[in-house]
């Protein structure tokens, strides 16, 4: 069970002077149960990439396999694929439309052809798993705070029980506490369900704390692909494309440059603290 991209390219406005290559010969394998971060600048191709994974965009070249099946096969059911590979877009305002949060979350399951009873059960389950307060189930989704809207939007996709969950910039516009809450929630969901999760972000620091694999996109290509430690150890290459590693990682590198024996792969405050205390001869 996995997603495989085989030499996928995507171009638009082909044949005109404005031809743009948004994805250039990308090959990737996304194994079941991974927690992946996709990082890159605006225009690096990261959004285009994820829209291929559930068939919203069709590659101009190359093939995508989901569970061994070519999703571009004539009789492949793309609607079914979209319930398997769930995607939450950046702005919850783009998907919330029903009169109540609860009805809104039922929209996905109903599109899957489930009856009302089943859809209701799914909605309960999804809203509970994102920690959405029960008092607000019958509220209009337009009256919610930014963080609650985000939860409702995630629940709307979770209710379809996807095996892969893609989240595009799920923390955009949230304040620090709201950001930590949403990221913490996603991590908890991953640990509990073991599903594949793909997190798209601008922020290295956000991603470093949570994921176990990072894919760096640049200029329509995969620029790096590895564990956070592997990726952040190439700080120079990241800077070349205008991305930065977490501040604490820089600090570890500076310590190392001064001749201290520290692990430069420390990417979180917790890890950096442990390294420095070790250096000081204190066992935390």
């Amino acid at each position, binding site marked *: 069970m996995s997603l495989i991209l085989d030499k996928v390219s995507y171009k*638009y*406005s082909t044949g005109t002077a404005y031809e743009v290559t948004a994805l250039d010969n990308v090959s990737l394998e996304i194994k079941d149960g991974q927690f992946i971060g996709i990082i890159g600048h605006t225009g690096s191709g990261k959004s285009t990439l994820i*829209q291929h994974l*559930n068939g*919203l965009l069709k590659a101009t070249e190359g093939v995508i396999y989901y569970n061994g099946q070519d999703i571009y096969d004539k009789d492949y059911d793309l*609607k079914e694929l*979209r*319930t398997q590979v*769930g*995607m*939450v*877009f950046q*702005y919850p*305002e*783009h*998907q*919330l*439309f029903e009169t109540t949060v609860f009805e809104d979350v039922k*929209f*996905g399951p109903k*599109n*899957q052809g489930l009856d009302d009873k089943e859809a209701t059960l799914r909605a309960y389950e999804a809203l509970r798993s994102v920690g959405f307060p029960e008092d607000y189930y019958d509220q209009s989704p*337009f009256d919610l705070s930014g963080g609650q809207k985000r939860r409702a939007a995630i629940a*709307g*996709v979770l209710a*379809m029980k996807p095996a892969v969950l893609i989240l595009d910039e799920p923390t955009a516009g949230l304040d620090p506490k709201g950001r930590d809450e949403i990221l913490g929630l996603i991590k908890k969901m991953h640990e509990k369900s073991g599903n594949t999760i793909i997190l798209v972000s601008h922020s290295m620091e956000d991603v470093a704390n949570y994921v176990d694999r990072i894919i760096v996109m640049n200029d329509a290509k995969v620029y790096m692909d590895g564990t956070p430690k592997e990726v952040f150890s190439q700080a120079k290459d990241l800077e070349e494309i205008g991305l930065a590693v977490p501040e604490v990682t820089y600090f570890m590198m500076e310590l190392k440059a001064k001749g201290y024996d520290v692990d430069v792969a420390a990417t979180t405050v917790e890890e950096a603290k442990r390294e420095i205390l070790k250096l000081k001869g204190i066992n935390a």
Partner: protein
Amino acid sequence: MFREITIGQYYPADSLLHRLDPRVKLFGTIIYLISIFVAGDIFSFAFLALFLVMIIRLSKVPFSYMVKGLRGIVLLLVIAGVFNLFMTPGQALVEFGPLTISDVGLKNAVLMTARMIFLIIGTSIMTLTTTPNQLTDGLETSLAPLTIFNVPVHEIALMMSIALRFIPILVEETDKIMKAQMARGADFESKGIVRKAKAMVPLLVPLFVSAFRRASDLALAMEARCYHGGEGRTKMKPLHYEKEDRLSYVVIISYLILLIVIRIVL
């Protein structure tokens, strides 16, 4: 999927037509529209075509670019042509079973198609050579006398220019909303009017909510920049006539008179 729309687009270039005052171009377009319906025989159409070719050359907009805008309405032209061709009574020229082509029908079909093509190319020249803002400025100034009858000319012009600015933003937003709902299994390709209308709800509700939100944000931003109606406003790009503009008026009026003469005399 919305990238291909070209109707109403501005084509930046440095030409006499681009430089002309928008009021002249508005006036010219109206006169040209009248002339299309004045023309009715081969001579007047030839004269009209000659005039149009001259204008196209003056605009420095590639002819191929203009024709691109025609592509979208080819089907419309064909349908209108066919209807005229077969449905007009008159002396039968050719018969295919129940279908007959009459002499009047043939004439009407040709005339009608020619008029449509002339109309579309002619009006698109105005939008191709005039920025949306110049156009609304031109309208505002041309319609200024109507303020006596309490017509809110300034407000109408402002609304037009804001609409022009937000159309591309809302088109892009529509695309995003469609994708977000398709990711939840929404089906925008379903058949049948009722099902189609129902499928539009998840698209239209977020779009309207967003449009209203943008409108209220924009109103606040305009207020913050001291907007308080048209009163006491100055203009960054005030309109004033140059020699070329006056000359153009003369050319436009002479064109119409000449066309009428040709139509009557020949």
